[in-house]
């Protein structure tokens, strides 16, 4: 299993917001096809960690290598790397001025230089996959939160990324909409996508994760398979956290 090169390689990373240290000596590797779920209390640095993987946050020291590209190497084109890394946000962030389908085709047309017809065909395929084909002509404001998030996942997939990052994808949703988004994510996981997911959905973590990462106060405290993690956590802090949320 470990013969493959890791697709994400994070080594001894420190990150600061002003004088506040958001990440302290964080190291983590993700194998191709692996599903990593990052959990922890709010302010533990889990979203920051996720956002460093496509350099939406910059690190002060350490190194992050994504699919062979070192993020802090000035010779690397960050925009090209970002095309390989899809990201889904807590607040969806669909482009409000574009229809659902246009949200999916903008980047493939402008960046991948796809023909409009081809981009739209591919876009409709992805919309069908997330169950949103009938809303192709709608604008984001016309959709529910769950629908918007499914479109946001499809938009990220439209660039055919090697890795998908999810930053608390269900935290802004009404409870009855969480399921439809998680279903899409489970499907994606079954298809073998490499995923790093920051979430509070423990059911999802148990069902889908290969590895669960627990963070607190900017450090990774525990990395384990879900069964081990939930049933016999090593760290006292993890036990307290799990008790609070389960």
């Amino acid at each position, binding site marked *: 299993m470990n013969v493959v090169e890791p697709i994400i390689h994070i080594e001894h990373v420190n990150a600061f917001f002003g004088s506040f240290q958001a990440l302290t000596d964080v190291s983590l590797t993700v194998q191709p096809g692996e599903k990593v779920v990052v959990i922890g209390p709010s302010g533990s640095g889990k979203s920051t960690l996720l956002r460093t993987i*496509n350099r*939406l946050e910059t690190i002060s020291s350490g190194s992050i290598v994504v699919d062979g590209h070192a993020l802090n190497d000035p010779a690397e084109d960050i*925009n*090209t790397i*970002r*095309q390989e*890394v*899809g*990201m889904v*946000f807590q*607040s969806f*962030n*669909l*482009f*409000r*001025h*574009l229809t659902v389908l246009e949200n999916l085709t*903008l*980047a493939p047309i*402008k*960046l991948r230089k796809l023909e409009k017809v081809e981009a739209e065909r591919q876009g409709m395929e992805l919309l069908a996959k997330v169950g949103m084909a009938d809303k192709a002509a709608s*604008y984001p*404001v*016309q959709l529910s939160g769950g629908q918007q998030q499914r479109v*946001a996942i499809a*938009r*990220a997939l439209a*660039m055919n990324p090697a890795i998908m990052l999810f930053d608390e994808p269900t935290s802004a949703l009404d409870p009855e909409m969480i399921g439809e988004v998680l279903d899409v994510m489970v499907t994606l996981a079954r298809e073998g996508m490499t995923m790093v997911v920051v979430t509070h959905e423990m059911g999802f973590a148990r069902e889908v994760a290969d590895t669960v990462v627990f963070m607190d106060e900017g450090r990774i405290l525990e990395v384990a398979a879900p069964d081990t993690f939930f049933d016999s956590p090593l760290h006292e802090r993890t036990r307290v956290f799990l008790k609070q949320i389960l």
Partner: protein
Amino acid sequence: MSEQRVVIEVGDGAAIPRAEDKGLLSAWWLSFLGTMAVLGYLLIFQADPYLRILKFLPDGILVTFQVTIASICLALVLGLLAGLGRISKNRMVNLAASTYVEVIRGIPLLVQLFYIYFALGRIVRVPDLVAAIIALGFCYGAYMAEVFRAGIMSIDQGQTEASLSLGFNRSQTMRYVILPQAWRTILPPVGNEFIALLKDTSLVSIIAVSDILRRGREFASESFLNFETNTLIAIIYLLITLVLSKFLSHVEQGLSHYERR
């Protein structure tokens, strides 16, 4: 410091009537129909001298429009550049743009007009019309810069992050994601500036540009019909700004189509 900042926006353009502001909409109709009625009355029942004055003015109206359109184009370009400069992380660019805005906004438009006309005239000979357009364009560009800056800043940071995460660079993000959305916020104040600029073109009459006002004054100085001429000039300006403000309110409605549920 109080938690909530109250923003009071008062432009010096004519107010743009919006469907939700019933009072203003009625005021628009009242002004428009009233003006049309007065104009109709004057041209029919007092055809002499009003028809005579009106026939003297079309060249001036044309010049006023020329100056307005050319200046607004220049102002939009300068405003966009300076507005982007004002939010630039490059310190030099930011300083240059901010200084332009500060300096221009601190000098009365009339003084700027004279300055460009006479001071620039010592170095290069500029036609009167061009001097007028440059002065108005630069002056309004500084106001536009603030409008563009505010419009761009009003777009949620999440839009930028989503765009960057797809692989767009900063300028592509600005072009494909931010500016198309910012337009909606920017258009109403730009419309106000447009109308304000149209009115301010009357200032160019003093640097020998034959706009409506100058044509009117030429007529008045020969005929001594000061009251009648200025009445008609006021009516013409009012009609133009009223029609323009109504037109802009329609454009605004069209631009916000994607916000409707």
